[in-house]
């Protein structure tokens, strides 16, 4: 009988080898008491609104580590909380923490709340964390916010998934580093993305994407 015991123990212990080697490196820096006290009211309000307060703590920790004055930390945390409130409403009903973090970045870059609502509608139940992140990168890279917003929503309408957004973003960023105009690069690279989508759009010869999304009757 012990033969069988050995066998299972062997199998079990073999797969738990090296557990400690996977441990993460780095240790979170605790907030000092002064910073914690300054942001406490903001945290309380955010918690009452069921927002992920970890994002606010992380922002405060960033300010503390970078030795920013307390007033600036409070201001930054308050501004982030306000964007989270707006994003939480726009991405209702149940945005994830990753979506809210990405949405807060997008809004900081100038993306309007209306775009977030349109993305939620187009993306249905899929996570918008990656599309929002890519939208932010496109905007801060120099693509006009209206154009970037419209194209990201259109990609979602055509069934684009995170890997499509990542691929698009990488190509645009490479083009920008190589000196191409961001807006021009986006037009060019969209031509390579749309044909691969579940509901492909048609690229015209003049650089515009002809959407095949059915229009909703008014």
């Amino acid at each position, binding site marked *: 009988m012990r*033969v069988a015991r050995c*066998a299972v123990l062997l199998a079990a212990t*073999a797969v738990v080898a*090296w557990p400690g080697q*996977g441990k993460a490196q780095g240790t979170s820096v605790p907030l000092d008491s002064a910073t914690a006290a300054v942001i406490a009211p903001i945290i309380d309000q955010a918690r009452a609104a069921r927002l992920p307060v970890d994002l606010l703590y992380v922002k405060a920790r*960033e300010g503390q580590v970078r030795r920013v004055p307390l007033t600036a930390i409070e201001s930054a945390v308050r501004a982030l909380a306000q964007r989270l409130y707006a994003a939480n409403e726009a991405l209702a009903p149940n945005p994830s923490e990753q979506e809210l973090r990405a949405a807060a970045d997008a809004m900081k870059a100038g993306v309007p709340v209306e775009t977030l609502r349109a993305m939620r509608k187009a993306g249905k139940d899929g996570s918008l964390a990656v599309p929002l992140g890519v939208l932010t990168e496109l905007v801060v890279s120099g693509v006009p916010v209206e154009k970037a917003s419209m194209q990201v929503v259109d990609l979602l309408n055509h069934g684009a998934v995170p890997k499509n*957004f990542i691929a698009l973003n990488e190509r645009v960023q490479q083009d920008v580093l190589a000196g191409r105009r961001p807006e021009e690069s986006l037009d060019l690279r969209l031509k390579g993305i749309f044909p691969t989508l579940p509901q492909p759009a048609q690229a015209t010869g003049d650089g515009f994407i002809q959407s095949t999304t059915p229009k909703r009757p008014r």
Partner: protein
Amino acid sequence: MSFAVFAGLACAETANAQWARQTTFDVGAMRLTRDDFADTGGITAAALWGRWSDRVSLIGSGAVTRIADGRATGVGLGSASYSVPIRHARIEAGGTGTILGTSNQGPTSSWLGFARVHWLGNRWGTWIGAGGGDVHVSATTFGAGTGELGTWLRRGDQRLTLNATTVRTSLVSTVIFSDETVLRVREPVQYADVALSGHGAWRRFEVDAAAITRHAWKGELASTPTGALSVAWWATPYVAVAGALGRQLSDPLRGTARTRYATVVLRFSAERHGPAPVVRPLPAVPAGEASLIAVPGGGGRTLVQVRAPGAARVDLMGDVTGWAPLALERRGDLWEVRLTMASGSHHVVVRLDGGAWVAPANLARIDDELGGRVGLIVIP
């Protein structure tokens, strides 16, 4: 119940922590040989669930085996620990539990608590620890105590560990007399195992090797040096063929005997393994600047690579590290670290040779509202 409460508290305390994951399922065949027993074969299935952060370690695993004569055995192992960092030291406390059952025998179990102190460097660590608890074998419960001392070295995906473990416990022998009187005899044993083990990963291959020797000063458990080797080849990022060959020493804490074994299994993983996909080349930058890419890679972790010509030290921090500086490891002309990064956007900055924190030159930058700018990366 207590385990669940502990795990819940630990997770709540580390909501921002980095979590590494390992989730695998093995199914395959084995061949076993014992010195006083005929060879036997069987089929086996095993599963592992592991989660680690910088403070919490949670591991659960289980296996079932059915050998040629129809008998079956199941085992479950659980382990949980919590660590408190104090500068370069880390104090860890936790417990392990094992339950072993067979088709026609009562279960064997052990419950051990432990405490360890670790000293951690950039590529090395050492620890010392002690533990104790109860072992329940053949309807007899007795105590067990352990002590351990070890050190490890790491270079990229290659790791080497040397550790010594002392064990003080008992063996139980059962004698059944002709009048059916059952007598259980306890024999105290004390021994030390010294093990040298290594792990390496090269693209699709992963290799683990171990050599162990046992010295006993009470009881008859001494052993000549022995070893084991296991290899896995990841046919896809989530499926591998794995094999193992070697000898396992007896384990009085769990009631198992010395055994030679050979296994071949098909391994399924919930996390990606093997070579990381090349997303884009790391852009060249002039001396004094840095470029950065993040590549989703093996084990559910993301490989962050930084090019910083001329730098003797590179640190990284961002939301993913809780804004704690993290020293990167040099590999050739690049600097690397593996992090668990959630899907979506993240903020990072780097520091070269202890200078100012700056956004990597190749990343899109966003105002951090704190008077600076941070690099933006998007993880799929």
